């Protein structure tokens, strides 16, 4: 059982790197599966300069509030969507509930990004998570007082995921 201090920290539950190679097709529009909780955030860091046509993240702003706008399957251009074309080192915080996709990469350069997934205290456990986390990291890391802290250092055994 976690300590009160941990209860008020931010849990880092997933971290991965993604690469979008040239000639990659666009993803379908979607919200991340099984994520119903507004206490979750994805933090994406551009490791390479990212142009819109380079497989950039594309989002439908203000679609995170469970409104009825569909994540329409097969719709290539969703009205109101914005491509997150950003320089290297840019950081994007976005809600997993936001309608989004990875665009096609029609350029010659790959797109590299690092994404962290974080959850506020008392967040509801996302279905299907952890998607991409080393087993030794699962349920272990918290952001507390600005520092990344392993659970055992904060007086807690590593937390266990439902899948354990």
């Amino acid at each position, binding site marked *: 059982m*976690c300590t*009160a*201090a941990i*209860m*008020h920290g*931010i*849990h880092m539950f*997933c971290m*991965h*790197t993604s690469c979008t*190679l040239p*000639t*990659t*097709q666009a993803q379908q529009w979607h919200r991340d599966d099984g994520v119903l*909780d*507004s*206490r979750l*955030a994805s*933090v994406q860091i551009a*490791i390479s300069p990212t142009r819109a046509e380079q*497989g950039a993240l594309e989002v*439908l*702003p*203000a*679609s*995170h509030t*469970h409104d009825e706008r569909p994540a329409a399957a097969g719709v290539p251009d969703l009205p109101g969507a*914005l*491509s*997150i074309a*950003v320089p*290297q*080192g*840019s*950081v*994007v*915080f*976005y*809600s997993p509930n*936001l309608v989004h996709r990875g665009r096609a990469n029609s350029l010659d350069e790959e797109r*590299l990004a*690092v994404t962290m997934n*974080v*959850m*506020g*205290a*008392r*967040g*509801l*456990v996302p279905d299907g998570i952890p998607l*991409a986390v*080393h087993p030794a*990291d699962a349920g272990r*890391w918290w*952001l*507390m007082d*600005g*520092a*990344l802290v392993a659970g055992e250092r904060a007086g807690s055994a590593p937390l*266990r995921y439902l899948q354990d």
Partner: protein
Amino acid sequence: MAKVHPWGGQTPLHAAAFLARWSQAWLLKRRGAEEDYGYHLQRGDGLEQAAQRTGSAAAADRDKVRGKAQGAFEAAVTSASTPAERRCALRRLGAVHARLGDHSGARKVFRARCQENGQAGEGAADGASDSARAEAEAEAEAEAELEAALAGFSEDEERERNEGGVAATTLAELSVSAAALRGVTSVRRGAAQRAIALWRRQGVVVFPSLLSGAVVARLREHVMAATADAVTVDRTANIRDPFNRTLRALAIADAAVALEAISEVLGPSVHAHAPAMCTCHVHLPCTLPCTCPQALEPFLRHAMVDAELLVLEVAAYRAAPGAQVG
């Protein structure tokens, strides 16, 4: 059946409440599921969910919603079992006061929270000057908390929402510049508020060129190592449209370099109190230099943990007398 989930105190009752499965919640309670204040905060009584769906609570229900919101948040303060939990509950109570239009009540709650935080940091103030400084800090923090509570909920923003113009139409509208976050206090404070408001209203915030080339280079080393590592967790097959895309786990410890760098920019490089007392928020007005590593977490707390109660808070805001409802 009512077992607490190890991730953060969630019970099946929380999940049923969050998903508005009232029949399941009723069955769980009949089977002995324990109600706690966290459950009450998420549950409301269904009026909140109705308000969220329809855009407003029925006029006859507004006082009821308002009373329930305030009562639930006051109960959270009373029920807090640790100082940290109590300070967290005070922040939420202050936010509810703020969004109900009771700004003086909100300041009072935020001041109380700040004073408790100061006591937790290094005990009672020593001498008149320390006392005056602590009072000034409490005032400043209360004001900053009030602004953070209202970020994204101002009258102009509400009007814009009602006119159907809430969604950003350009990348610039979603962006907060690193230069502004590094600027003088007033600029930095405005930028931080804007980031919180963007998160609440748009669900996405972009910080262009936030990290230095050196930090990106270190992250790239980890990325390359993960790519070459045969035992790394590879989830490429699990993602949508995986052809030519890869997705591999990175060691979370490797995130520290990025988190520190993000914190450094998202938070003030200077602030008005000693590090031992630091209750730094991204929006706290600061005057004296010191290193503050605590900036990212407060941003996330405002962005996410406050959103923990978004359904209830939005309903409370909409139920406030005179509030425009969409």
